């Protein structure tokens, strides 16, 4: 195969990361510091997620990597290739067949099940960061559960836009204790965080933090009594598969403002088309 150790990282590093993961699972939503390594990719490309995936992989695993829901975009393709080369594990695009799924900014539409691990790439793990720049102070705020400031951000949203305009990286409270940044997933995905049978792991490489949600953890999106949380999406159906309940990407199709909406989860969309569902612009039997 290659001269790399299994899954690129050396065994000691993987042990160190596993310890951080176990601690994260023991304290859901708490950001565990870990000694993040330099990876052969730039920060911002998923160095945290890759390290967590490397620490979780076994030779029997089947890996799926998605980037904004798609299996075939640059980030997904290169990370998948990276683990094919360094770990030699099987890969798949089907959510139901994967044992480990590394994701950038989406939760797959197909419900996850027990035994699966979902690894998120996190750019900024600290939900309070843009409100309080001092790390010492934000740690103190987590310690003492002083989360009023998080609502100031939501207040500002309503004051300025009339509704809570935060559409991604929407802050959540885990098991009524820690406020957590769910990574920049659309808030449409927030309800899927809660009570999920899969293990959810979050890795931030540059910020050197790992946090986790064990299976069936209660996760609540923050809101106001008179402005409740709403999992929003574009008010359309998928133009290829006709799905009305999946998160959509808006695609500009010409210079005159024409556009189409397609599922951001490519595996989900392809599966529906294979099953015979056809959207507004789809052609019957055209899947794959």
């Amino acid at each position, binding site marked *: 195969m290659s001269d790399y150790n299994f899954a690129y990282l050396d065994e000691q590093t993987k042990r160190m990361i596993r310890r951080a993961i176990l601690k994260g699972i023991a304290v859901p939503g708490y950001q565990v510091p870990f000694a993040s390594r330099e990876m052969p990719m730039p920060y911002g490309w998923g160095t945290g997620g890759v390290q967590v995936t490397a620490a979780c992989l076994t030779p029997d695993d089947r890996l799926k990597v998605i980037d904004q829901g798609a299996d075939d975009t640059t980030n997904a393709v290169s990370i998948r290739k990276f683990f094919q080369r360094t770990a030699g594990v099987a890969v798949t695009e089907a959510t139901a067949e994967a044992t480990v799924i590394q994701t950038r900014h989406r939760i797959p539409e197909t419900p996850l099940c027990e035994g699966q691990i979902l690894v998120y790439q996190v750019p900024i793990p600290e939900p309070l960061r843009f409100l309080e720049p001092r790390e010492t102070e934000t740690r103190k705020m987590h310690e003492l559960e002083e989360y009023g*400031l998080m609502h*100031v951000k939501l*207040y*500002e949203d309503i*004051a300025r836009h009339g509704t809570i305009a935060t559409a991604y990286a929407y802050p959540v409270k885990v098991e009524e204790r820690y406020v957590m940044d769910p990574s920049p997933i659309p808030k449409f995905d927030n309800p899927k965080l809660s009570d999920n049978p899969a293990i959810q792991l979050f890795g931030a490489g540059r910020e050197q933090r790992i946090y986790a949600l064990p299976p069936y953890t209660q996760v609540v999106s923050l809101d106001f009594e008179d402005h409740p949380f709403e999992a929003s999406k574009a008010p359309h159906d998928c133009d290829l598969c006709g799905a009305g309940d999946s998160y959509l990407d808006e695609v500009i199709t010409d210079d005159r403002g024409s556009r189409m909406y397609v599922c951001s989860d490519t595996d989900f969309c392809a599966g529906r088309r294979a099953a015979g569902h056809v959207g507004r612009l789809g052609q019957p039997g055209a899947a794959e």
Partner: protein
Amino acid sequence: MGAVDLDICARVKEDRPLLSVQGVKKLYGSRIGCTDVTFDLFPGEVLGIVGESGSGKSTLLGCLAGHLKPDAGRILYDGRDMGALGEPERRRLSRTEWAFVHQNARDGLRMGVSAGGNVGERLMAVGARNYGTIRDTAADWLGRVEIAADRIDDRPSAFSGGMQQRLQIARNLVTGPRLVFMDEPTGGLDVSVQARLLDLLRGLVRDLGLSVVIVTHDLAVVRLLADRLMVMKSGRVVEQGLTDQVLDDPQHGYTQLLVSSVLQV
């Protein structure tokens, strides 16, 4: 019978100091920040602390508000020893029963957050989760400090210095604190704005029955606001008493100098 008992209870409660400071000392290395400071502050009372720059006024205020840890002495708030109080409790007090008005409004405000958000922050910190109520309360408080209602969504960076200072006061008083610390609240403002701010402060202190510790080097400010006065020099209290008594009949040499240094227009 019962009514009489209640009356006595109320009076006994009033007679207990809200803040009791006993021999507080703070050293910076071998230099004295402040030393041997002892006083009681009763509910509804305004205490002025005056003295020149470097006399230990702000150090003392920092010790009282819990920002600095005194090297000796005890501070009792409502009968509880602040030194023995844990940090969570102290931080809870400082955003519910206490307020701190900074000299520079920028230190006490969130400049990136609208005026309404600034006032609402303390409410949300103590658990308010209804947007409509928070906004109404914020609008009400902006009115009380004479900021026009249509400025509620503007950021403090768009406000004048005087408005920023009034906003800071509204932000601090919104949760109905019992004890307010003020560090040179009128510093850096021109005299007409100062006069209006003082007028406002005097009204609020009377209406809400606040206990206030106000640090300033401006004797006119304490003359208007303070019931009692403490004069500090080189970290020590050199004279204390009723404000009018201290200002009109200063006993200590330094106080005499201070009073005679005020320019007469």
